[in-house]
Structure formats: C-alpha cells, structure tokens
C-alpha cells in the first residue's frame, strides 16, 4: 500500500474510532434528555453517521480509481 493510502486509512480508522465513541456517548445521553434535546442529539448523531459513511465511500472511491 502506498504511503498516501496508508495515511488515508489511518485517518479513516482514527475518525471512525472517534466518531463512534461520540455516537455511543450520545446514545447514552438520549436516555436522560428531554424531548427537545433528544431531537438535537439525534440530528447530530445522524450527521455523524453520514460523515462516517462519506469517509468510507471516499476511501472506496480512491481505491477504485487505482
């Protein structure tokens, strides 16, 4: 694997770890949140999940280009 690709993979791994950790914490917070705050959290969680998907798709695309 090239250095560039290795770097992209490292970045993906870090981001997935970091963003998943936030998703898990946010999910626990949902239990104790009032309605309005729950909606806000869910919207942010959805954004977060989408950003993980985008990163995975971006790495896939760069692999396919090779």
């Amino acid at each position, binding site marked *: 694997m090239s250095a560039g690709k290795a770097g992209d993979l490292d*970045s993906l791994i870090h*981001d997935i*770890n970091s963003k998943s950790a936030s998703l898990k914490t946010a999910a*626990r917070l949902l*239990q104790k949140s009032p309605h309005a705050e729950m909606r806000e959290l869910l919207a942010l*969680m959805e954004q977060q999940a989408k950003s993980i998907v985008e990163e995975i798709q971006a790495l896939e695309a760069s692999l396919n280009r090779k």
Partner: protein
Amino acid sequence: MKNMSVQMNRSLMLCSALMAKLTILVVEDDPLARKIMETHLGGHSVEFAADKASALEKLAARNHDLCFIDLKLGRNDECSGLQLIPVAASKGVYSVVMSGHDSENYIERAYELGCNDFFSKGNEEENIGSILERFLRKRGQVKVDEVFVESFVTEDPSTRATIAEALNYAPSSLPVLLLGPSGTGKTTLAKVIHDHSNRSGEFVAINCAAYSEDLLEAELFGYRKGAFTGASDNRRGRLLQANGGTLFLDEVGSMSLKMQTKLLKAIEEGTFYPLGADKLETSHFRIISATLEDIRSLINSNRMRFDFFQRIHGFTVQLKPLAHRKCDLLPLISFLTRAQKRLAFTPDAKAEILRHDWPGNIRELRKFVDLLLAGDEGCVSVETVSRLLKTIRVEDGTDSFATEAQFRFALSQGLNEAVDRFIDTIIKRAVTQNYGRKAKTLADLKISTRLLYSSLRRIGRHPRQEPVS
C-alpha cells in the same frame, strides 16, 4: 448497569452543581462531540472553538480555568491541537486532551508539551467528573501555611501533616471522620474542610447528643405542619439545608441505631421523606462527622452500625489534646488575642501555662484568655496564671471527681469497668497504707466485707492493673 449509568451521570451533573463555576474552553471540531461536552459541563461557563485559529483567539482573549483539546481539528488536520497545549500551559490553563488519537506516541507528546491530563474519547460521562475534581484538588492545594495561621492554629508537625492531607480531599465528596477529645477543634476543622471544598451549599452542623431520638429525627429530616404534637408549622430539616454543602454530625457516637439506619438510607439514596410528608425530598451533601468516643469501641459494643461507620468514614483525622501539643499553647493565645489587647507573659507565667495539662483543651484555653483580657495586667504574672487556672477548674468542674482520663476510660470500657477499676485502686492503696490490715481498711473506707473481698479477688487476678487517674 442502567442504574449505575444514571447514578454516574447524576453524580457528574451534581459535581457541576456543587462546584464553583469554572471558565472552560472546549476545542473540538466535531459538532456531536461539542454537544456532549456542553451537556456534561452544564453549570460552568463554557466556550467552544472548532479550529486552532479560533482557539488561539479565545485563549488570548480570556483567562480560562480549563481547556479541553481535541488533537485532530478537521478532516485533513495534522493534529494541530498539539500546538495549543503549550499556549494553554503558558497561561496557566489546566489543559486536558480528549482525543481519539490515543497511541503512546501522542500521549507522550502531549505530556511533553505540558498537558495536565489525557483521556480517550468515549468515556466522557466518567472522565469529566474526575477531571474537574482533580483540577479543583490541584487548585485547592491550599496554601497550607495560611490555614495554620488563620483558621486552625497549630505548630505541631503531625497535626499539620494530618490536616494538610485532609485538605487534599476537601474538594472531593469523601466523608471525613474527626476524632479527638472535647475542645480540640473538631468543629473548626470541619468548617475549614468545608471552606476548602468549593461547595456552593451551606455548612450545616448538628450536635447529635443535644437531641432526643425523636427530636433529632425532626431536626435532620424536617417535618410538615401537624406531623406530631407541637409541629405548628412546616420546617426544613438540616438534610435539606445542607443540599450542595456539608452536613456536620457532631457527637455522632450518641446517635441511636434506629436513627443511624434512617440516616444511612438518606445518605445512600439522596432522598428521604420529612416527617408527615408524602413528597420525596432530594438532597446531596458531603458528610463530616465527629466524636470524642473510641470508634472501635462504639462498633464492638453495637452502639454504631458497621455499615453506618463505613458510610461516614472515608478519611479520618485524629486530633491530639492540647496536653500533647503544648507547642501550640502560646501561638493559640496570640491568635485568640490578635484583634484585642496584646499580652506578654513573664517567663514563670509561660512555664506555668506550659506545665498545665489543659484537660478542657482549646475551650478551656479560650476561657483562660477571656479572663486574662478582662483583667488589668498587660504583662501577666505567674500568680495570675495560677489563680485563673484554678478559677476555670472550679467553674468547669474540670477539677471534679472524675478526671478526663477516667471519663475516657468509662467511655471506652463501660462505666461498670471504670467503677470497678476505681474501687480497686482505692482499696489497694488503703490496704497498702494499712500494712495489709483489712479490718482497718473496712473501717476507714466504710465499706462492706463483700465489697472489699470482691475487689481483692479482682486485684489478685490483675495485680499489675494500673489505676486510671
């Protein structure tokens, strides 16, 4: 697990509520992570920055107490968060890295650059509370010398060491148990610990020995109008008054087992019903307890529940009587007269002060100082010191029939044992003085033969037993 998680989060929110308001900067590009931090830092003044540039601006613009830093700030960022650490450190800001980049390399680098704490993301619920506690403990590492000059005057090295250690725990919610004879400063120390706890609530004290069981319950839990005869109005109990603060249970050893059970439940659950109420009340407080009794003896004689003891003692401070820290006598006199007429003592007067044992401890010393200040002498003579000490003894009954040591013996071993020991001491002395003549001893002491012989049997079993005097 769910209950534990709820409790933990409650204790975190509680932490925020109980602590003084802190100024915090959170450097985090991820909106969800920012929201999580905002939730867990509720009650504090929190600013956010999403990148290095705005973080530097905010650090320059304001003095923050703490700074939480994510290392990777943006998709293609090369951990620019690291560069913020020395900037925060140079401003004396307590910097905490919370990052998904938690390889040894990054951890080492972050500490090298001067960060105070490093946590991996994902455990904010548990970590933030302990980070804030650690920060407060570090900050509150009190100029200990100030305490020993302004609040709890002592030059005794071991007393200073114990109190300094207790103050390390002041910002935590660890319960503290203060032991020591009457008048050694347990209440003063409890207040000092509360003052250094950063708790926003009050210091609420109650002397458990001053109330009957029913009244103690009413005082602690409060009551509703009509709950019992004499309850002419609603009354907020001490537990509620202490919410967010400190509850000081003085003479905790005198609390009945029934009351210990009720209080234990309230401490553990943080909820209770005032007398006559059907609405559950909530209160979270830190417990400081004090007693002059021997704790082991209280537990062994079933006067204190072991689970109650476990709940009230996290850190124990044993205060010495003044007789064992005579180096404190003259500094204490100086402290007690600092805002009033200053006194000097002749060398003989000082020697007499140091010779006296001060069985009433600081309370007795305070009375002595009051009497001195009411007098005419500026340079106090030995005759004045002797006269005043005698006056205090007569007033207090500290020269009374039972010495402090005998009183403490009775508390630890029981009154029957103390009485037997006293009887044996007197009889042994009388028999010795009468060269073994029992008839003369009976006549001198005006006692029965039965009493004499039961005592002699005891003395025979424990010939080396020391009198308690």
